[in-house]
């Protein structure tokens, strides 16, 4: 049996809502993925440490607080520093259209804004994950 895709679902930043993250986590599970859920208020360092120990294929982050322009690129950078740039990074949450190109430039592969169907997230991950 093939190893299922392993995804770290993380909530960086200070906002205290993880409904969206949980919906995504459940959808990924129902698509047969192994989701490691780490809960609220994770620092970029914690997210990277967990991603490395869990040897995940994907890091999926969600932010509602508006700190995405700082926190998403930070996670990308630390993962790179650790030599783990093969991990697929996606983001979601309340993110203005104008910020999306910059985030993609920084290495976030895709940004999912509110209203995105979970099936689209699943499709994107399946098509873009680098299997080892």
């Amino acid at each position, binding site marked *: 049996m093939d190893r299922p895709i392993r995804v770290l679902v993380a909530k960086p930043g200070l906002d205290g809502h993880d409904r969206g993250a949980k919906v995504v986590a459940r959808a990924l*599970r129902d698509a047969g993925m192994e989701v490691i859920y780490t809960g609220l208020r994770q620092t970029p360092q*914690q997210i990277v440490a967990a991603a490395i*120990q869990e040897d995940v294929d994907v890091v999926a982050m969600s932010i509602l607080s508006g700190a995405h322009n700082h926190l998403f690129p930070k996670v990308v950078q630390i993962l790179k520093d650790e030599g783990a740039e093969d991990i697929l990074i996606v983001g979601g949450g309340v993110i203005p259209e104008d910020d999306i190109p910059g985030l993609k430039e920084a290495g976030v592969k895709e940004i999912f804004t509110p209203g995105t169907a979970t099936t689209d997230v699943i499709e994107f991950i399946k098509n873009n994950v680098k299997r080892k």
Partner: protein
Amino acid sequence: MQLEEKLLNGDKRGCAKLISMVENNDKEAIDIIKKLYNHTGNAHIIGITGPPGGGKSTLTDRLAKALRKEDKKIGIIAIDPTSPFSGGSILGDRIRMNDLSLDKEVFIRSMGTRGYLGGLSKATQGAVKLLDIFGCDYIFIETVGVGQSEVDIVKTADTVIMVMVPGLGDDIQAIKAGVMEIGDIFAINKSDLMGASKTATEIKMMLDMSDNMERRPPVLQVTAIKNEGIDKLVDEIKNQMNYLEESNELYERRKNNAKTEIIKLVEEDIINLILKKNESIGMLDDIAHEVAIKVLDPYTAKDRVFNSIKEL
């Protein structure tokens, strides 16, 4: 051999990759374990089991923190059940252990109970060996005390901590039937809630009734979220290890576990041989057909299968 060096040097990414590889039955990872097997044996392996929501992850977090104060290196393997519907899972044990993520001397790995090649226990035991080589002084294996495979895993530990909670009531009877015998230490968690001392008394009474025990398991009340009773539990973990070492029971347990492990590995190879043979000639289907239409009995069928793999 880069991965091997990384593991020996305590590199987390190397260790994490190797755990993924043993999960997938990868030959390179198995070869590394073979080569470095003499580096195992240092770690005290502790199974943490009990009902879902009992506070196993919270307690593991507190135990790890207490042992970190003594500068011990800690490995944690947290096993959560996989959804039977999709094969996927949400592994949430890390939520209770987030402060440990950044500690250089702590390694946490979550595992689902997915359909592993060779079973969950094989994957877990591989991961335990890797963490042992990685240099951990203590390795905690957290599993829900429900399915047989989870109980099997916990049995591979040197020491088993049964986590109970107040107000289990009749559930204690059910737990007693299955897993009461495997607990070396009983920790009644959530002792801030009503009924904890009653639960402790009930468990003590049950222990009084069973007689075939080498060592009477201590029963402790703890409150993991308030970090109460943790030092006492750490003391009991150490007492247990001293007892195991001094009584030669550690050797006995490890020998027993090795026996079970070897038999399982051989069993797996034999089954793989049968399946491989079956692939080439369709033997199993043909024989099953004959048994189904009653021209052959299953015992003779077994002999035939067995003889055919001996020829391989």
